[in-house]
C-alpha cells in the first residue's frame, strides 16, 4: 500500500467523523452545544486540509489550514461573546 493510499483512507475517515458531528448540531438541546459542535468540526477540517495537501502533492495549500485555524477562532470567540450576553 502506498503512502498516498494511507493518507486517503485517513481523509475518508475524518470526513465521515465530521459528517457524524452534524447530529449534535441538529439535536443540541442548548445553543452552547451547537457552538461545541462547530468548534470540534473546525479542528477536524484543519486536520483534513493538512492531509489533503499531501494527497494532492502541492505544498502551498497548507496556508489555507493556517488561515482557517486562525479565523475560525474569531468566529468562536464572537459566538461565545454573544452567548454570555456581554457584548
Amino acid at each position, binding site marked *: 500500500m502506498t503512502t498516498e493510499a494511507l493518507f486517503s483512507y485517513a481523509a475518508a475517515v475524518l470526513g465521515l467523523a465530521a459528517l457524524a458531528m452534524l447530529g449534535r448540531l441538529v439535536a443540541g438541546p442548548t445553543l452552547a452545544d451547537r457552538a461545541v459542535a462547530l468548534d470540534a468540526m473546525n479542528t477536524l477540517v484543519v486536520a483534513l486540509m493538512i492531509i489533503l495537501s499531501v494527497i494532492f502533492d*502541492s505544498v*502551498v*495549500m497548507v496556508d489555507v489550514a493556517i488561515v482557517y485555524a486562525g479565523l475560525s477562532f474569531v468566529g468562536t470567540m464572537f459566538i461565545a461573546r454573544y452567548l454570555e450576553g456581554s457584548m
Partner: protein
Amino acid sequence: MTGNFPYLVVGILFVMGFIGIIFEKNLVKIAIAVSVVEAATNLFIITLGYRSGGSIPVWTMAGGGSSRMVLPTPQALTLTAIVIGLATTALMLSFAMTIYRHYGSLDVRDVRRLQG
C-alpha cells in the same frame, strides 16, 4: 462514483435559499438566505471549472508533472464575487439594523411602508 452529484447539490442549495428568501418574514433571516444563494452560485462556477485529476493553477513548488491544471478563469471571477458578497451582506444588515431602530420590529408585515 460521484457522477453529476455536485451539480445536484448546487441545485438543491439554490432552491432552498430561494424558498428561504420567499417564505421567511424576518429581515435578518432573508439576509441569511441570500448568503446561501451566494454560496450556491460560487460553488456552481467553481464546479464548472474543475478537471478531474488536475492540479492547482500555481507553478510555485509544484510537484513533478503538473501540466494538467484546472481552469483558472472561474476561480478569478469567484474571488471578486466573494468580497462583493460580504459588502452586500454588510449593507443589508445595516439596513435591517436601521429599520429595527425606527420601527421596533424586523417583521416585514409590521413595516408597512416597505410593502408595495
